[in-house]
């Protein structure tokens, strides 16, 4: 109800309308196709924990890394008007640092895990600052600036660990990647909630949103109002770096190993897509993190739906592409303007009728 009111007030269709409708259609489609899709059960997993199972749980769980990276990607997009395509590669570096650090400690306990996490956040942020400096100080197009680490990041990850797929095995690691004993909800979901809540707090207690949007819309004007665009852009990369570190660690813990070839593979494109599906302009400016999170879940929902329909995994990407074309086109300025015009015409038509009677 309040959504409709807000849409009315802004005199057009809200940014979240199309992703919400897309999500709704996917949900309805699955409901008609097979109501059993939504069944949630309880099972005992390998480590003897009781865990929730079912497609919905699996969707929310597997989309975690994507959702977290999409949040950071939204900020970089908003501030710089471009995207960071090295998130997957740098996420793999994060995973490698995490594993390398843990291998260096004599035992894996809560303290050493936290230290390893800290180390990997630090390194990831440094790599992202490299990207950020190229983009903000040297004004290189984000796609080109981040292409460097996109190409060489996975090699760096391999050098760091020095072997193809080093494994780490510990109850703490599996608790982080799968479930904590006694809690039936997969841990990565808490990761998303944690990162989302932290960002919400940052927006609540700082002016980051206003500054980022100002820099994204009109950098020159923002500077004349005392904002330092370089700092704001760097900050967006720092936040993206932290998101990437968390996602890399979650991915690593999920597998119990770091594989520089498969960890977070292709996630950069999905993250950019999530930002776009969420109705955010890839040219920067105003943004909604919630849209990108929604976008991430839509992408994962699509994959899981297709798997549930027994589509051959080899063909999934093609089917996904078709649906995504439709969503992205529905959110395109052309279609949006048409819909808005129709909407307004219907409204003003109603007004004319009312005033005619009055």
């Amino acid at each position, binding site marked *: 109800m309040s959504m409709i009111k807000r849409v009315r007030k802004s005199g057009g269709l809200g940014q979240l309308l199309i992703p919400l409708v897309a999500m709704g259609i996917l949900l309805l489609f699955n409901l008609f196709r097979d109501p059993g899709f939504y069944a949630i059960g309880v099972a005992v997993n390998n480590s003897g924990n009781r865990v929730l199972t079912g497609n919905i749980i699996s969707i929310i769980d597997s989309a975690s890394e994507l959702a977290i990276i999409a949040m950071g990607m939204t900020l970089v997009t908003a501030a710089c008007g471009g995207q960071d395509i090295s998130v997957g590669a740098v996420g793999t570096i994060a995973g490698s640092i995490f594993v390398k650090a843990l291998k260096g400690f004599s035992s894996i306990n809560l303290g050493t895990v936290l230290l390893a996490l800290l180390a990997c956040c630090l390194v990831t942020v440094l790599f992202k600052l490299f990207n950020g400096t190229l983009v903000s100080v040297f004004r290189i197009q984000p796609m080109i600036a981040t292409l460097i680490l996109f190409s060489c990041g996975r090699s760096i990850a391999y050098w760091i660990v020095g072997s193809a797929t080093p494994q780490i095995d510990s109850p703490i690691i599996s608790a982080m990647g799968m479930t904590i004993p006694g809690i039936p909800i997969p841990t990565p979901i808490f990761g998303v909630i944690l990162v989302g809540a932290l960002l919400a707090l940052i927006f609540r207690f*700082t002016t980051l949103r206003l500054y980022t949007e*100002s820099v994204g819309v*009109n950098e*020159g004007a923002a*500077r004349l109002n*005392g904002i330092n665009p370089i700092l704001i852009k760097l900050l967006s990369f720092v936040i993206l770096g932290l998101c990437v570190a968390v996602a890399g660690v979650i991915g690593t813990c999920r597998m119990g190993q770091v594989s520089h070839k498969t960890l977070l593979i292709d996630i950069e494109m999905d993250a950019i897509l999530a930002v776009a599906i969420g109705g955010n302009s890839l040219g920067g400016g*105003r943004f909604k993190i919630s849209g990108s999170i929604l976008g991430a879940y839509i992408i994962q929902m699509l994959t899981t739906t297709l798997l549930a329909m027994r589509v051959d995994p080899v063909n999934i990407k093609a089917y996904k592409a078709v649906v995504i074309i439709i969503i992205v086109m529905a959110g395109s300025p052309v279609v949006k303007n048409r819909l808005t015009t129709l909407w307004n015409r219907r*409204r003003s038509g109603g007004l004319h009728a009312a005033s005619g009677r009055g």
Partner: protein
Amino acid sequence: MQGDVVLSMRGICKEFPGTKALKNVDFTLRRGEIHALMGENGAGKSTLIKVLTGVYEKDGGSIHVDGIEGETHIHSPQDAQNAGISTVYQEITLCPNLTVAENMFIGRMEGPVVHWKDYDKRAASILTGLGIPARPRQALSSCSLAVQQMVAIARAVDMNCKVLILDEPTSSLDEKEVEMLFTLMRDLRGRGVGIIFVTHFLEQVYAVSDRITVLRNGELVGEYAVKDLPQVELVAKMMGKALDDMAQLEQFDQKKAPGQDVVYEAERLASVNTKPFDFRIRKGEVNGFTGLLGSGRSESVRAIFGADRVTGGRIRVKGKDKKIASPHDAMKSGIGYLPEDRKRDGIIADLSVRDNIILAMQVMKGFFHPMSRAEMAKFVDEYVAALNIKTASSETPVGSLSGGNQQKVILARWLLTHPDYLILDEPTRGIDVGTKLEIQKLVLKLAEENMSITFISSEIEEMLRTCSRLIVMRDSNIVGELTGDELTQAQVMKTIAGGGAEA
């Protein structure tokens, strides 16, 4: 349709969410006539033009174009062009990296093989025919703005346009260039083109137009022959009230003598774009920088605000030494700056009126002290009311407001920070007479309240009316300072022209 009418718009209506932009407006354009379309900001001029050029779809009314049977339906700019309606906007919409000839013929070349030599020849003959000083093979970007605009007009004319719309064509031209443009306009008039001339410069309307249509609040006030409508009456019709305001402002002429305390003082201040200069302003003083375009007046105030990289100089604010190397430093020292180019440096177009108003104040408060919604709403409501900003709501993107209202939003932004010293660079450019007067009055009132103000304008009368001290610049040098009795147009002109002030 009468014989010499080329365009007739009848009963045009256009509604936007929350406002009726056009209410039953008629407009008639005759062959070989220059017709000025006048009105304050938000009067509906732009909307009418956009309906005519297919940018907006009208909600009601009809359009007839000479030579086209029945009603002309315009749904897109392409339709408008096909109907013989061409527009040359304030901002040049050609491709600067192409040559003049390429710009004139791009998109309408026949056949798969392009004979550039032929096109160059055709371009050359059109350019000479219209007396436009440009060569066909010259890159467009190497021409002055005025010539670029004339090339755009030549392109339109060559496409056999019957209706030529010039939207604020003179706002970035100097006097000589304006005269060149007028010569071209008169020439086209002689060839039977109907020209719609949208401008804020009253003198220019009287210099070149035959007829005037006045709009106010989306309604037609009337259509007049220029000789029947004295300038004062035109202004009164645009504002919808008898023009005592002008007189009122003259009374303001008893400018308050500024105080003795120096608020801001610079010694040998220099930036990458200026030569070193000295400057000081007292409490409650209104001063101005004047000089021709490119004389360095804007660059000087940009140096004061730290907008360009400062390369040297000593600055004292209220007697204390200060370092001002960035806009943020200047803001902390109590300086505000309304930039010359509103669209490029002033507004943040996609953001709401609210965000645009509170921006500078929020930056002063700091990164970790965001203002609450309620606090913002309080300030925004206060200033929207005080400056009479016309906006559907505080959530409206500022880019969708009219020029004058955008300017008021930026003024509100700086007034909200309660600066000791406010720099206004061309605050009245491209905005209507009514708002212009409002801004001038506001400047005098703020000075009355002890704010120091630097006021820059291309219109000397406006500066004479508001400033008690004028700094005259030529070629990045301060060549004179006028106060008291010297503040006359003649004296300013003489100083700008250089009465032997330097070797």
